[in-house]
């Protein structure tokens, strides 16, 4: 009990806890769609593309959320545009964009005199250093993302499951696609400081992937993913505090452990579970 209460009296820990849980929840909700759309790679690319934006923001002394946000958003939209007129395979286009933008970030970073710890923090996460003003900004962005998903969850679900059927019945599927890529960009910006550019894709994908092992209904999948995202953020942050290790990496490793344990013991896939191979889809019964 003592061990649980001790760190929480520090303001920096309270802020870190809030920021981590926020990232965990927003990533889990948006990640549920990302996993079903097969967009994990796009999420990773958008995260890396945020780096040059963050560096430029640092160089001109502006807020990193704006710099990273603009870069991530532009990348997300351009990937969406390329994939809609695919003369290239989408993963090829993403590979090009992803490596190119990240290289630009590294180049700009190397141009700054001396070692810039703040910026290195964006690569691997440094949630303990989050400022009060930044945190307020992240909370507002998080509220926006969750509100948009709350309003459009049905439409996003239909467009994800059956884009042709949804478009034919009048849903603006192309518009929803761009909107969703925008949400992915915002989600990544929200999570940058908590887990860092390199690991944010894990926050996006792992809780939703774990939830997919446990349920066959979308609404429940989102709820389970959210609970996993929030609780692993808390557990990971405490562990990193107690053992004095990197917080972002610890949160991600806790999520990975939960996934592995679920895979091993889960009701559908696990060694101990009842053998019902068709439960989560897979092979058709016919």
């Amino acid at each position: 009990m003592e061990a649980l209460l001790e760190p929480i009296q520090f303001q920096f820990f309270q802020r870190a806890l809030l920021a981590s849980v926020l990232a965990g929840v927003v990533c889990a909700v948006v990640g549920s769609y990302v996993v079903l759309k097969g967009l994990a790679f796009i999420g990773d690319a958008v995260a890396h593309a945020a780096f040059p934006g963050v560096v430029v923001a640092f160089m001109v002394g502006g807020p990193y959320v704006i710099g990273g946000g603009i870069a991530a958003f532009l990348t997300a939209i351009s990937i969406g545009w390329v994939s809609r007129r695919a003369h290239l395979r989408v993963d090829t286009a993403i590979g090009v964009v992803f490596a190119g933008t990240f290289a630009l970030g590294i180049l700009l970073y190397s141009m700054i005199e001396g070692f810039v710890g703040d910026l290195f923090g964006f690569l691997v996460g440094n949630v303990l250093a989050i400022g009060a003003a930044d945190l307020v900004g992240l909370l507002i962005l998080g509220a926006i993302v969750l509100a948009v998903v709350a309003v459009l969850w049905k439409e996003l679900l239909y467009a994800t499951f059956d884009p042709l059927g949804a478009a034919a019945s009048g849903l603006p599927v192309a518009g929803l696609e761009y909107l969703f890529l925008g949400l992915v960009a915002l989600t990544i910006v929200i999570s940058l400081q908590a887990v860092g550019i390199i690991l944010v894709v894990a926050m996006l994908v792992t809780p939703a992937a774990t939830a997919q092992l446990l349920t066959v209904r979308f609404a429940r999948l989102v709820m389970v993913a959210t609970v996993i995202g929030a609780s692993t953020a808390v557990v990971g942050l405490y562990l990193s505090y107690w053992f004095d290790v990197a917080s972002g990496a610890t949160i991600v490793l806790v999520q990975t452990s939960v996934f592995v344990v679920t895979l091993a013991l889960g009701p559908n896939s696990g060694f101990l579970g009842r053998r019902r191979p068709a439960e989560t889809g897979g092979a058709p019964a016919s």
Partner: protein
Amino acid sequence: MIESHTEPVHEHDAMHIRAHSDVWLSGVTAGYADRAAIENVDLAVESGTLLAVVGPNGAGKSTLLKVMAGLLPAWRGRVEVLGAAPGREARRIAYVPQAETVDWAFPVTVADVVMMGRYPALGPLRRPGRLDRRLVDEALEQVGMADHRRTQIGRLSGGQRRRVFLARALAAEPALYLLDEPVTGIDATTQEDLMDILETESRRGRTVVATTHDLACAAQRFQRVAAINRRVIADGPASIILDPDVLARTYGGHLLVLGDQTVVIDDAHHHDQPVEGEIHYHDQ
């Protein structure tokens, strides 16, 4: 008996046909990238018609349906669907894609999928209400899937999957059904059941346009048939598809004559739009 639309149509008749049609296409060419899948298609489908679109692989059946659904633009020609430009009356249209295009591992149950038919009418923010749940229940009852409402769709047989997607269309209460291969690869009982439902819908004044590979089904269960092979070869009462001349012109090289029996060589699993990494040779 065969009304060929290549024959000149009187101006006054043409206006009359257009006004009474739920789907009206005139000189339509459309396709993907730089390849036209259908060329110069004329077709008028009156309200309450049960129409089968038949033709060999690569004939452009799915393309034609997508143009009607407003999913693909016509490169040339004019299209009117439910009296407006395609896509404008989308909420009165239920489109069911080919079974192969659906991710069956998706975490949704039978009832979830059928409820999606109600989403466009609900609009954002509003949650499904009593009316929506009643329509979903009725649709599930109609297709005989009420006992499977909580089943994840990947656990269903091929026939059950088609039943569920037809239920989604029914729940939307559309004026026009556009169904891509609704009775392909399913057992005879399911085929009969689904055709009974479509027949009922057409008798209620709803228009049904379905592509099919099953010529026997087209001849026996549909009211009208349009035989296409990039162009409309023939268009008329369902019996036209039994005409050897129409068959020969529609299926060309896909026909095999064994004694006095004609066999159509065709594979049932087909996409007009080639799947990545898969090569289809359709064109002679």
